[in-house]
């Protein structure tokens, strides 16, 4: 992409006959519509997620409090990924071990077929 846009501007003569035309076409709408392009690029503003355990200063992620753990488990029993919940890496690590312990003692369901 970057090469194509550059090529017609610097060494236009050596390129194939199609290219300068395309470059011209592209350059044509551009001055008119950078604003439109920007709007199209970013449609909605996404709020920055923060780690629940960092903000509330919960140090101990215990396998026993299934209420907290349940917030980070999907309906199917799967652990919700960090990119969806916003939990920071060290806390996600502890969270996942806690969830796995809770599964072992039947506080949380295992992933797989819904029961």
């Amino acid at each position, binding site marked *: 992409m970057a090469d194509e846009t550059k090529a017609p501007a610097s060494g236009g003569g050596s390129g194939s006959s199609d290219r300068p035309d395309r470059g011209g076409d592209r350059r044509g709408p551009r001055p008119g519509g950078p604003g439109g392009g920007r709007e199209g690029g970013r449609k909605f503003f996404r709020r920055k997620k923060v780690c629940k355990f960092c903000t509330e200063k919960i140090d*101990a992620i215990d396998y026993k409090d299934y209420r907290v753990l349940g917030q980070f488990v999907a309906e199917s029993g799967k652990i919700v990924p960090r990119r969806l919940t916003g939990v920071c890496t060290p806390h996600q690590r502890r969270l996942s071990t806690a969830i796995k312990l809770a599964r072992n003692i039947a506080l949380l369901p295992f992933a797989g077929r819904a029961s």
Partner: protein
Amino acid sequence: MNRTYELMFIVRPDMPEEDQEKLISTLESAVNASGGAIKKVERMGKRRLAYTVRRFFEGVYLLLTIEGSGGLVHELERRLRVSEPVIKFLTVRVDEEQKRLEKIKKLRDARRKTSANPAAAAAPAPTPAEAGGEAPAVPAQV
């Protein structure tokens, strides 16, 4: 080598209270025999299981906090496995985690103190200097 463990186990829901007591006391005697100690007994009550265990949908959760060695845990687990009404158990070593939490707490307290102290130290320090040098000027500005 003393370690702290949490021993959580589930007994079948139709087990009477006195039998639970008996089970706990037998475990306690086993703990005492090998030089450990039960620090806490917690009854978490009857709860619905997340999945069926031995065809049970619910169970009574019991939690023991135990101090002792690894051999003791081995013995306790063997007993739980043999005993009929216990349908599931889990042993977790907690002393390392507790140590980590204490460390974090200490660090946080220290930080709070240092962040509180400069403010406390900085606030009274300028006022005497101002009061000594230009006491009438300060109220005029305000």
